[in-house]
Every structure is written in structure tokens, then in C-alpha cells.
């Protein structure tokens, strides 16, 4: 999910390699066991705490960007609750990760917070075809859409689904591998074309021998790895990678699926249950290390060692995280503007971009299927306003935009510039535009114009009476991936000073939403700022700026 298409890092460019030396390079893969692993046990209502895993990297070779974290989640209560629980549909196994940190001895090199949220955001910049064909295997993620063509009247509102989007699950063999149409849960199979489900191989299971193990590329988590190669063998200290797990709450590691009692019947809601365990035995770090063989008794690493003794300067980026909140609306008939202004600090830093997500704030004591921020995405996502959203960024006491960005299309365009590629999610997933009833001042949606059908279910999620926007089939997907972002780089190359220098005045993010009758929940306001750091490797030690 490195969207900036930067060149692969190559520390050896500091010394230059002959073609013969290049051919002496070899890559070795190591599978590392955790140095520490902890995971709190779950309770009936609140679930377990987070827990943590740490790995010490070997002190040899060069660290390549191909580093993977293997993770597996099981649900021991499977036999009693049925297959009615599983990973959140889009974020998949990434929903287990809260924070990732790299240390050199006790020096923090890079830390990325709210990983699951950030990685789901970044996933939206990957081509749907790539997600459809690889992400279900890599991380258990399903997010591709197809066109619904069901002309049957459903949803309790006398409407067809023609021209709406549904998950790309088909019984015709042309949908996403791993999804199927018509069968829900192992204990109550039922044939119904209005239901989509994961095939058994992609479901959470009771035992470690049955459940899939996913492999997460760490370059998604640490931009660091795509920007520099650490000469592990030339460092005197220890590089340690630490992951903090998300707490086992409803919507984080798992969400409650449903089963269908009979064909043509709406799914029956299941409550979420705790004890979704990360398997210690299968939690491993897979590391690629680069070595060079001697040529005529000389090894390029020796030349690199000399260079390191005198000092190598490397540029990389880190994510600074700020969280605030947006209060709930009253849910009245008239939309209310909700202005939020957040001071992000960041003084004297060089900022390359700012990313924003606004998922609904959730009450973790609620175990109902509609408890998470979004019934299908779980607690990840970003909930769009039904009315006009505006965004302004103030840097060094000046507005970045001459006028605040005032339309969902412009917001899409701005975040697309952060990654130098368009956001690969459709209008329907990021906006309510085109689905609002023009005759209503309340900005309520117009059922026939919603982009997702109310009578189609993914893993039986979001069952409801078919009338409410949230908790009703796939309609809860509308506007559920409305991420915002601002590019502050003059180039997408990883060079010093590519970003915008911040002075003494704090960076300010001003966001205005319309809280409406249908969409008025309180939101979390998650802000990530990608800031530049400089690392100096000298005399076998690492010194970093700004952290």
C-alpha cells in the first residue's frame, strides 16, 4: 500500500556497486519468533484488553523492505455461536493492530498509531482489481463492488436494486474469489441470492489448525521501510519492532455475522462475543535480509561499514497522530452545521501531508450487530455528512486554500493528490451526493437513489427492518469511506524538504459537517500528519531528528 511509487530504497548507492558486486548479492529470509507476547483474556461483555508483541531483528545484513507480520485470529466460541463472527469485512486482519513502533535501543525511530484506521484509508488508493485478487489472501479483506442487477422488488420499500452497487460476490464465477452468493453460515445454510458470504476458507474458526494465517507487509505500516535500508549488521544497538494490539471490542478484531433461517428471509442478528484471540504460536515476523559475498576477498559491506563510520544521512517520514472529536447532532429535522477546529501542533516540523478520518464514535459495551461504527466495516471507516462538508487547513497563520474545500468531489481530489494517484473508491462510498431527496430540507436520503440496496446482505450484516439507513443491508456502506487529506509536498520524491515547513504557529484543521436526522452520530476525528525525519547512522549508532 505504498502509493507514492518511490524507487526501492538502496543504501548501497552511498558507496556505488560494480556489476560484479551487484551479482554477489543474495537475500535470506528469516522467520522470527516474538521476543515478548501478551494478550489479555476476554470478558463476556467488554472483551479483552489489547496486548503487545515485540520482535528483535537480527544484527546482520541489510534490512530489505520485504518484512511481513504473520497473524491469525481464532474464536473459541465458534461451536456455540456458529460462524456468526468474523473479521471486519474490509480491514480484515489489520483490525487487530493499534500501534506499530520501531526502536533503536530506546530511541523511537517511527511510530504509527491507529494502524487499522490508517491502513483501511490507504487501502482505498489501491486498484479495486488488485484488492479483489490479492487482498483476501494477504489480509482477509473484501471491498470490491459490482453492479447489482436484481430487478426483484425488495427492501420493504417496493424498489429494485437495478443500478446499485453490491459486493462483488457472484455464483456465476465472475466475482471475487473467496466470496459466494447465497449461503450464510455453516450451521444454518440457506440459499438466497440476496445474501453474500465468505467461503469457509476465509472465515474465522475455532481452532488454529483451521483458521487462515494472514501476512501483513510492514512497508504498509512503516513508510520507513520503503525509504531506507537499515544496515543491521553495522549497528551496535538493537532494532526492535513492537505492535500493540487493538482491544477485543465489538468491531475491532471481529464483528458479529448473521445466519439466515430460511431462503428469502432476512438474516437474524447475532450478538458479538468476546475472546477473539490472536494466536501466539502463529504470530511471527518474516524478514528478508540482504548479504553480499566476497569478490576477490573484498566485500561491499566493508566499504559500507567505512561509510557508516564517517556517517550516512537518510531521509524518512513518520506519522504524527492527533485525535479529537466531533459532537453528535440532535437528530432534529433540520440539518445543523457542526464546526470543529483542531490545533495539531507540529511546530518546526516539515509536513508532507495530512490525512483525516471521522469514524462514528462507538460505545464498546454494546454487543449488538449494529454496535460498531459501521455494521459491515466494523470500527474502521469514515462517516460522511449528508450535507455540505468543508475543510480548511491553516499553516503559519495562512489558509492553505483560498476558499475552504466545499464539495465532496473536491475533497476526493485533494486526498488523491496526497498519494499521487486517484482514490480508488467510488462516489457512493465517499459521499451522499445523488442520494439525497431534493424535496426534503432534512437532507434525508431517497431510498431509490441510495447507491447500495437495503435488501442485500454481506455476511448477514446490518439486518434491520429495511427502512433505516443504518442497520439495513448494504445501505450502511453509503458515504462510509469519506476520508480527507491535504498534500503539502512539492514533490513525491523522498528528498529533504519536500514537505511544508511549519513555523511557531500550530497547524489548524477546520472541518465543518452537517449533522442531519439520519446521520448525526458523534465522530472521532483522527488526524495523521506525515512528517519528515532525518536519520544519521554514524559510528554504528543511529541518531534521528524530530522524534
Amino acid at each position, binding site marked *: 500500500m505504498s502509493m507514492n511509487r518511490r524507487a526501492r530504497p538502496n543504501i548501497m548507492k552511498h558507496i556505488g556497486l560494480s556489476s560484479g558486486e551487484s551479482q554477489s548479492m543474495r537475500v535470506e529470509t528469516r522467520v522470527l519468533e516474538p521476543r515478548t507476547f501478551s494478550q489479555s483474556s476476554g470478558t463476556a461483555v467488554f472483551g479483552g484488553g489489547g496486548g503487545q508483541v515485540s520482535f528483535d531483528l537480527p544484527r546482520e545484513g541489510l534490512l530489505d523492505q520485504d518484512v511481513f507480520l504473520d497473524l491469525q485470529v481464532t474464536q473459541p466460541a465458534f461451536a456455540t455461536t456458529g460462524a456468526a463472527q468474523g473479521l471486519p469485512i474490509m480491514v480484515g486482519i489489520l483490525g487487530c493492530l493499534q500501534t506499530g513502533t520501531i526502536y533503536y535501543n530506546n530511541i523511537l525511530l517511527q511510530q504509527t498509531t491507529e494502524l487499522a484506521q490508517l491502513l483501511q484509508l490507504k487501502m482505498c488508493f489501491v486498484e479495486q482489481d488488485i484488492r479483489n485478487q490479492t487482498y483476501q489472501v494477504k489480509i482477509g479483506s473484501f471491498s*470490491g463492488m459490482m453492479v447489482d442487477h436484481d430487478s426483484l*422488488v425488495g427492501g420493504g420499500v417496493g424498489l429494485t436494486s437495478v443500478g446499485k452497487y453490491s459486493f462483488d460476490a457472484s455464483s456465476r464465477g465472475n466475482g471475487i474469489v473467496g466470496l459466494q452468493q447465497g449461503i450464510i453460515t455453516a450451521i444454518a445454510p440457506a440459499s438466497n441470492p440476496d445474501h453474500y458470504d465468505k467461503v469457509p476458507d476465509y472465515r474465522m474458526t475455532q481452532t488454529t489448525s483451521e483458521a487462515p494465517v494472514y501476512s501483513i507487509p510492514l512497508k504498509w505500516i512503516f513508510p520507513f521501510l520503503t525509504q531506507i535500508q537499515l544496515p543491521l549488521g553495522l549497528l551496535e544497538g538493537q532494532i526492535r519492532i513492537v505492535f500493540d494490539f487493538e482491544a477485543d471490542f465489538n468491531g475491532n478484531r471481529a464483528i458479529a455475522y448473521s445466519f439466515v433461517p430460511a431462503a428469502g428471509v432476512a438474516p437474524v442478528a447475532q450478538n458479538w462475543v468476546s475472546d477473539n484471540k490472536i494466536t501466539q504460536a502463529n504470530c511471527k515476523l518474516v524478514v528478508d535480509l540482504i548479504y553480499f559475498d566476497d569478490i576477490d576477498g573484498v566485500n561491499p559491506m566493508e566499504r559500507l561499514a567505512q561509510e557508516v563510520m564517517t556517517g550516512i544521512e537518510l531521509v524518512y517520514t513518520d506519522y504524527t497522530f492527533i485525535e479529537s472529536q466531533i459532537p453528535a447532532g440532535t437528530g432534529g429535522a433540520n440539518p445543523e452545521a457542526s464546526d470543529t477546529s483542531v490545533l495539531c501542533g507540529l511546530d518546526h516540523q516539515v509536513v508532507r501531508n495530512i490525512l483525516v478520518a471521522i469514524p462514528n464514535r462507538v460505545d464498546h459495551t454494546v454487543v449488538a450487530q449494529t454496535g460498531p461504527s459501521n455494521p459491515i466495516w466494523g470500527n474502521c471507516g469514515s462517516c460522511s455528512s449528508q450535507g455540505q462538508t468543508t475543510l480548511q487547513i491553516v499553516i503559519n497563520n495562512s489558509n492553505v486554500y483560498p476558499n475552504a474545500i466545499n464539495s465532496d*468531489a473536491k475533497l476526493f481530489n485533494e486526498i488523491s493528490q496526497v498519494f499521487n494517484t*486517484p482514490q*480508488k473508491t467510488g462516489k457512493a462510498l465517499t459521499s451522499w451526493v445523488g442520494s439525497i431527496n431534493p424535496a426534503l430540507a432534512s437532507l434525508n436520503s431517497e431510498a431509490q437513489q441510495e447507491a447500495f440496496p437495503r435488501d442485500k446482505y454481506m455476511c448477514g450484516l446490518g439486518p434491520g427492518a429495511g427502512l433505516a439507513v443504518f442497520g439495513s443491508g448494504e445501505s450502511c456502506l453509503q458515504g462510509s469511506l469519506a476520508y480527507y487529506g491535504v498534500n503539502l509536498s512539492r514533490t513525491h520524491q523522498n528528498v529533504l524538504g519536500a514537505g511544508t515547513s511549519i513555523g511557531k504557529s500550530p497547524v489548524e484543521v477546520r472541518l465543518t459537517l452537517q449533522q442531519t436526522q439520519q446521520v448525526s452520530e458523534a465522530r472521532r476525528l483522527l488526524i495523521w500528519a506525515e512528517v519528515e525525519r532525518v536519520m544519521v547512522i554514524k559510528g554504528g549508532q543511529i541518531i534521528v531528528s524530530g522524534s
Partner: protein
Amino acid sequence: MSQPVSSLRRFEIAPMNQSSGSSSFSYREGSPLIQFEIGEADLYLMSHTLRMNFELELTTGAGPGNFPNNNVQDPGNPDAQVLLNNKIGVAGCIENITISNLQNNTLEYCRAYPRLLASLIPGGAGFGDYQGYLTQTFGATSNRQVEGRMCNRKMEVSMPLMVGMFLNGENIPLSFRSGTGGLRISIMLSPSIQALFGSTPALTNNSFYTLKKISLTGQYGIPMGGVLPPIKSLGFSAYQNFYSVINTNDNTQQISPSLSAVVSQFTNFVPTTHISSYAEDGYKTTPLLNTTGALGAAQDLLAPCDGINFLRAGSSFPLRFKIDSRLLVVRDPAAPGGDVFAGSGFDAQRQLYYQGALRPLRRTTMCLAGANSEGLSIANGDVNHNSTTDIGNNGQQNCYGIGCRYDAMGNGSTANFKAQPFSMRLQSRLNGISPMSAYTYFLHRGVINYDGNGIVSIST
């Protein structure tokens, strides 16, 4: 080519010809011309960030306040009342774009812009793109039913201008002394009857579109040192369009483009009777099609192309051979509906060169053309992704065209057509009573030359 910049500055520009009484633009309900001016300054225009933002609403022939209701969303209503072409979306409302500087020197006059995009976009985007970002940039979905739903209510887009000038995303200097001398972008809107179509005459006829809340956004790049470096010349790209009609089964198009540096050329087709018709989608890129000639008969019978020659000054160039598809043409006199050539094979060689003309093949990582769009015998009738040719009332959903690339290596080389006419010989099974409109586009390079006082000449 792109010059380094020290920092960026955002801009948002409103149309300079916006009336104080109304901010709407429309061929019927307002001004059909939208003009933006980007001022002359010691700045770069970061052309890859340039976007035209607007809202678009369609209104049925029943008059203002009446939105379409496509897709039988209310029982009893027909499925296609007012639609935009599903491969280019809102870009169908733009007839042509003129890029000039503030001294009125024209740099590019991009005619038949929608038909240019009808080739360019599907040539580089698959269903995943049409489901994703193309709904945001063009309101395009590649599926007639989704397009129908989107056309029912307000659409909101942030659209790049895919003219040659901005195609490479280069940083364009804006000063008089070392740049273009500002830019004036004039956008002429299409007649409603050309942009819109449907199958419900009572509502489709006299339907119209309205653009609102229009602005041009982007970024300026501030040059190192705050002053643009002096230059002697500035290269730019542009599209040149030529229109013609072919009707015979052995037709040679002769064009004198007077262009000295042509990168590629391609042609797309549509039945002439489909142009400016509320009953037909005039932006389709169909294969050559015959009609039986009977009164009211549709022009939807395949007339396969079995020989293509590209020539310069009478000699085959750049291909030294004919694209020969005779062996693929199969005639079945007993075919239902008189579609006697429907069983012909797919001329993949033509499609390959055409795709190469749209963008270098190594950069073509995605495209819409496939068995379903081209109506091949192996099509699986999938209605859940991009619209399938001849399934239901979709008609021809092809991504068809003819062309070739002179810059075959993709390294910037060009061919000179300054004093040497371009010709294309097209042998087909057209029956002589089925006129097909041919839109030919040349992508070419031009140069702005400077002396110490600014622009001296612009040559193409």
C-alpha cells in the same frame, strides 16, 4: 521536463463570464461558453493538479424541476428517460475546449472533446476504475444502469481537462517572458440533444442539462528564487481533430494535418444518424455498422473491417503492411435479423494498434475492452460489471477504433506531416447506405519560441 519548484500555492478560479444574476451554465438554460483565465505570473501551473469542478443536473423534457427517473425505480416508468454516455459521463456536455494565452495565441483547439475521451478513457481504465475514481472525476460508470441511477439526481465532479496541453502533467510556466503568457481556457458546451439520450420521447426530447457551482482549482508552483528561468522554447502537446463520413466499402480518408511532429493518430466511429439525436447515444465508439435501409431500421448490423492501411504521402507508414483481417470475416446469409457478418472473428491486430495509439502499450495497465464489451462469442453475458454489448437494451458498448502510434518506442519520437498528407485506406463490408461518422485525432507536439522580450512564434 517538469521544473523543480520551491513551494506550492493553491488557487480557485471562477468563470470570468459568469453572470451576476445566475451562476448556471447550460446550452439551453444559460450560457453555453465557460471561460477561465489563469493570469500571467512568474509561476508554474502544476497542470496535473488542474481540475474543473461543478455540479450537473439533468432535467427531463417535462420542464424545470423534473428530474429523470431511469431504471424503473418506480413501477410503471420506463428504464431510460435521460442518460449520459456511461463511458465519459459529464464530459459529454463539453463540445470543445480552446487553450490560448492571454494575448489570444491559440495553443490548442480540441474539437469533439467527448469523442476524444470516448477513446482515451476506456483505453486506460477497467471496470475497477469506472466503479471507483471515474465516478468522482467524470461521473462515468461504464454501466448503463448505474449511469441511469446517477443521472437521476445531482452529480458532483472534479474533472481533469484531458486536452493535449495538460496530458503529460507538466509544470507550465505562465509568465510572458519565459512562459505561455497566462492561459485562457474556453469551454464550449454541447447541445443538449447531442449530450443526452433516452428511449422515452415524451421525457427525453427537449431534456437538458445545467452546470452549477463551477470553478477551476489547481496549484501554482513557485520557482526556485521566485523568478522563472529564461527559456528559448517551450514544448507542448495538443490534439487536432478532423471529422469525415465514410459510407463505401473501400474508402480512403485523406487529411492534410500540417503538423510537423505527430505522436499518434486514431479514429473512432458512430453511425451518423446517431449524432445529435435524443434517441441515440452519439458518443458510442461502435464498430462499422450497416442498416438494411428499410424505413426506421436500426443501424446495428456488423460491417467488419477487413483491411486497413496507414499512409503518408501515398506510402505505407509507419506500418509497411496492411492490417489484413479478411480471414476473420464470416458471412452467414441465413443469420437472424440480417446480421450476416455477426459471426466474424475479432480483429485483435487492429485493436492492438488502436490501443497503442491511445497511450504507449507499456503504460496500458488497464482497459475496458474485452469479450463482453466487444460482443465476442466467448462473452459470458455478465451484467454485473461494465455494460455488455447487445445484452438487453445496451446496444453497442464497444471500445472500437482504428489508429497507430508513430512514437512506437514511447520515447518521444514523432512523425512529420507538415507537407505530407495523411491517408487511411479502410476496406470494410459497409453497404453504401450506412453512413458512419469518423472522428480522427492527431496527438502532436508544438513549440513556443522566445526571444528576450517574450513569445516570438508558436509552431505546430
